[in-house]
């Protein structure tokens, strides 16, 4: 069994008062709560903080935890002989068990964060799986396989980690950040409580061409100065083919060409749009002839692009 230092998780001394522990929890929860924090690892950190607080905020649990003695975090330790008899497992070999699971086993209840423990029916835990899809998979729909390690309460009261695997159907038209819910497929309820739900968090892999924003797609469209000066009919790639689009003479750099309905499909009908963002580019190297023609243009044009920067600026 690995020892977890709950005091270190809450950044308090071992003799901290109940009030100090509460303050430390509030400070850290505000910083690392997954609904508030966006930094990498915040969720795991919050889980550790929350687990520590659940034990240290309850005088009885805190006493039991203190009785385990002082160990280094992650150090292997074996509970006292008294524990071995009270909570022995089959074969007498200690298995990999979470401290939190162990506390549940000791009769300290299996409620969620901050909920009261007791013989009331408790709804099973919600499970979450994250997946990364390509834009094509999101557009067409797909299936996702998952593997989860779920703490499960056995009929004899022991908590064991079970591996759960399965496949989830992902309908077409999902977008970045969407969550799919499979009702009743989370952890089993306790004491007659209903089962939790299984959630699938959708993330989209970066695409070499398109950037997805909701159901809309954005595509950089390099364009030559003469194409934008004279107008042009160009071919753009879309997610499932190509599309012709007209560049009007005099369009500006950064202006968007909209291809309606060529974005990611919606669940039922319709689709987002595809936007081509114009970027005026020069040939990497000018041929002799190109240089000559640009020189002629420079000589012939009276266009002064920086006229407004001359003289003393005036208001408005």
């Amino acid at each position, binding site marked *: 069994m690995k020892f977890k230092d709950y005091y270190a998780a809450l950044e308090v001394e071992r003799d901290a008062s109940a009030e100090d522990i509460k303050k430390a929890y509030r400070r850290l929860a505000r910083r690392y709560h997954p609904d508030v924090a966006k930094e990498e690892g915040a969720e795991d950190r919050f889980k550790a903080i929350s687990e520590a607080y659940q034990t240290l905020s309850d005088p009885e649990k805190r006493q039991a935890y203190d009785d385990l003695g002082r160990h280094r975090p992650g150090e292997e330790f074996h509970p006292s002989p008294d524990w071995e008899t009270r909570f022995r497992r089959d074969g007498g070999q200690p298995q990999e068990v979470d401290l939190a699971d162990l506390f549940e086993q000791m009769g300290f209840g299996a409620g969620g964060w901050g909920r009261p423990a007791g013989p009331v029916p408790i709804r099973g835990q919600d499970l979450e799986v994250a997946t990364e899809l390509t834009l094509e998979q999101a557009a067409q729909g797909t299936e996702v396989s998952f593997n989860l390690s779920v703490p499960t309460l056995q009929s004899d009261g022991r908590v064991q980690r079970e591996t759960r*695997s*399965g*496949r*989830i159907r992902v309908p077409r038209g999902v977008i970045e950040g969407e969550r799919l*819910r499979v009702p009743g497929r989370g952890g089993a309820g306790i004491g007659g409580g209903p089962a939790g739900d299984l959630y699938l968090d959708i993330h989209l892999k970066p695409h070499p061409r398109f950037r997805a924003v909701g159901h809309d797609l954005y595509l950089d469209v390099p364009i030559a100065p003469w194409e934008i000066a004279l107008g042009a009919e160009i071919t753009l790639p879309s997610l499932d083919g190509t599309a012709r689009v007209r560049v009007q003479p005099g369009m500006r750099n950064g202006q*968007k060409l909209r291809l309606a309905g060529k974005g990611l499909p919606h669940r039922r009908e319709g689709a987002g749009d595809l936007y081509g963002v114009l970027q005026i580019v020069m040939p990497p190297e000018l041929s002799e002839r190109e240089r000559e023609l640009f020189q002629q243009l420079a000589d012939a044009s009276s266009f002064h692009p920086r006229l407004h920067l001359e003289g003393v600026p005036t208001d408005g």
Partner: protein
Amino acid sequence: MADDLLIPDDNESPLPLEELLSASGLVQEEVIELVQFGVFQVAGGSEPTWTFHSRTLTLARRAARLRDDFGLNVSGMALALTYLDRIEALEQRLRELESQLPR
């Protein structure tokens, strides 16, 4: 079990109040107040038989987490959810604008 193909909820089907309560851990009074605050939108029905959009479940679970982890009351939940919603809208806008910049 390994070959069990799970079908997610249809995100567009209405979610009855009862299911919103059991799946989020909020109590009915909290949901009623959050509707009054305008944080939750009712999709249809009248009070005991309200239905919600499934998007509301995500909000409701978040509200319950904020309540449990920070000890917030309903006004606090409403305020936090409103701000989080605004942050998400701004982040979305930022992503949109970033997508229009050349890479």
